[in-house]
């Protein structure tokens, strides 16, 4: 295996990891703070991707498309929170699973009704359609931009949570929501805001992923399930855990797919390796999760309580 291939795949892994982080950040906060299982997070990602595709077609501007996706997802997230989710906080997880499962079915069908079953392809923005030259090795600049944007969001959310008043309330709400409510903070509004913020990040991820993946009904579920793996590995409720775990999962998945079949071919016969390689590669992140849970059920970077 050559060095440039390894470098390219590592960058691909980072880019995937950053995308996963955008989804995981909102989801882990909702999990950790409201203790709510949100399967519809993938639908918000999908709605973000479609909003971006439509806005892009109407205006031709990628920046407007990204803003539209974030806006639509934010509003949709807050509406969902007020209409459905907030009524379920006190119920057990089974009700959460049921309600959000119903929402997933609804959104997938809605998208199929409005935009049809065929996938939508979104062009890479003009400005970022070139490649970047790195010591004689080229890499698409759009993917670089995703990595940069993701790191920026990660930094921003760190600052938001640790340095601002809203962040302080979020952290306080995670530890003792009744006390925060008793101190005169509108905890319902805070929850809606938090849910909307997570939804916005998911929409953003959808908009950014549009040009590399195909935008279609049901696109949210595979990525949602990988995001759940990220959250469990990182430790439920921990944003920094989600960040590290997202990068780990992104790298393991991408490098596994690229190199596992190749490596197996060296130790096993070709037909066996060709059959087992892709199977093992697509299962690698789930193996990782099973191993982590078997040894550290609370995740690798659990949130510190008290």
């Amino acid at each position, binding site marked *: 295996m050559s060095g440039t291939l390894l470098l390219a795949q590592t960058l691909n892994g980072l880019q995937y990891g950053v995308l996963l982080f955008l989804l995981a950040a909102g989801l882990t906060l909702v999990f950790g703070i409201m203790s709510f299982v949100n399967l519809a997070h993938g639908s918000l990602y999908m709605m973000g991707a479609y909003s971006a595709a439509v806005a892009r077609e109407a205006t031709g501007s990628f920046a407007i498309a990204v803003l539209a996706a974030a806006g639509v997802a934010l509003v949709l997230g807050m509406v969902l929170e007020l209409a459905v989710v907030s009524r379920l906080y006190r*119920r057990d997880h*089974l*009700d959460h*699973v049921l309600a959000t*499962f119903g929402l997933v079915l609804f959104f997938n069908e809605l998208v199929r009704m409005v935009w049809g079953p065929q996938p939508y392809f979104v062009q890479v923005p003009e400005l970022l359609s070139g490649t970047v030259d790195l010591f004689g090795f080229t890499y698409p600049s759009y993917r670089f931009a995703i990595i940069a944007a993701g790191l920026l969001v990660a930094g921003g959310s760190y600052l938001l949570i640790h340095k601002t008043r809203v962040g302080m309330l979020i952290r306080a709400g995670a530890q003792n929501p009744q006390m925060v409510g008793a101190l005169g903070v509108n905890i319902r509004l805070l929850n809606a805001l938090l849910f909307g913020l997570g939804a916005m990040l998911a929409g953003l991820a959808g908009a950014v992923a549009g040009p590399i993946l195909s935008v279609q009904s049901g696109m949210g579920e595979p990525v949602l399930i990988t995001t*759940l793996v990220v959250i469990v590995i990182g430790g439920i409720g921990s944003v920094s855990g989600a960040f590290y775990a997202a990068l780990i999962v992104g790298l393991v998945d991408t490098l596994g797919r690229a190199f596992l079949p190749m490596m197996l071919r060296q130790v096993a016969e070709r037909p066996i390796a060709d059959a087992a390689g892709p199977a093992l590669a*697509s*299962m690698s992140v789930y193996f990782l999760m099973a191993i982590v*849970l078997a040894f550290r059920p609370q995740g690798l970077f659990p949130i510190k309580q008290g």
Partner: protein
Amino acid sequence: MKNANALRPSTLVPLLVFAGLAAVPLVATAMDQPFYIAFFGRIVIYAIAASALNLALGYGGLVSFGHALFLGLGGYAVAMPSFMNIGDGWIHLVLCLVASGVTALITGLISLRTSGIAFIMITLAFAQMGYFLFVSLKNFGGDDGIPVTFTSRFGPVDLGSPMTVYVVSLVVLMLTTWWLARLRVSPFGMTLRGAQQNARRINAIGLNALRYQLAAYVLSGMLCAVAGMLLANLNAYVSPSTLSWTVSGELIVMVVLGGIGSVFAPLLGALVFLGLEELLKAFTEHWMAIFGPLIVLMALAGKRGIVGLLQRLDQPPPAAARGVESVHVKGEAG
């Protein structure tokens, strides 16, 4: 006393449903509508799978979001030997039980180290693992699935015709329902249900709650695999989509719709779920856009399900006894 119990709506209705299901082959043959055999066969088989889930979810409180894994394992336990020209049903059955039992034991041991949200996630992850495993097995059809050419043959009974599958499935469902009704009130079932409410107390009285939960999970997985085996024979076809996460979700919806934890819930849930699906499909191709919000409403309404509604009819209201209740009161007196 026993007679009076059987006449309660919450028992009477499921018994009538069973009677109706038993009449399906006769009616379908008389009407020359073989479609009904396949349709109700699916309902019966899903009711078995939902019964299996009810053992883990309803009795044990284990929110498994990965039971499609076992359904799929059962299916491939038929399809893979059939692909190699083995049609002996006993081999299929042994393979099905061993594969699902071992898988459930390993995944259960790991999953039960966690609880709450993490348990839901990890069972989902294991099911996804199975899904991708079968997608990547290109020799066995991969994404497209494989037809079952050699259906399970148990001596003279060949599960090749839908009618035979239907009859066998109905018998399996009846036995399952009877067994689970017995299990529910047995010491095992009581301990399991006790552990759902408070595992620490179960441990404190000297029982190992984890062991009971694991046993329930393994039994549940094996039973679900039997349903998968029957489904593969009914469809004469297996694909990885049987293992997709939506199937796990649908099974949960069936159990909750029926009335989680009660004996007849899986049957009623599967009947209403698949019946409603078929009705909405006739009405619009975008039936899921109606079905999804219905599930949301069901979750918002709480989860006593259909059995809960029927139980409400069991108690006669104090003053005005309407038609249904007066029949019921008469029954109890007699």
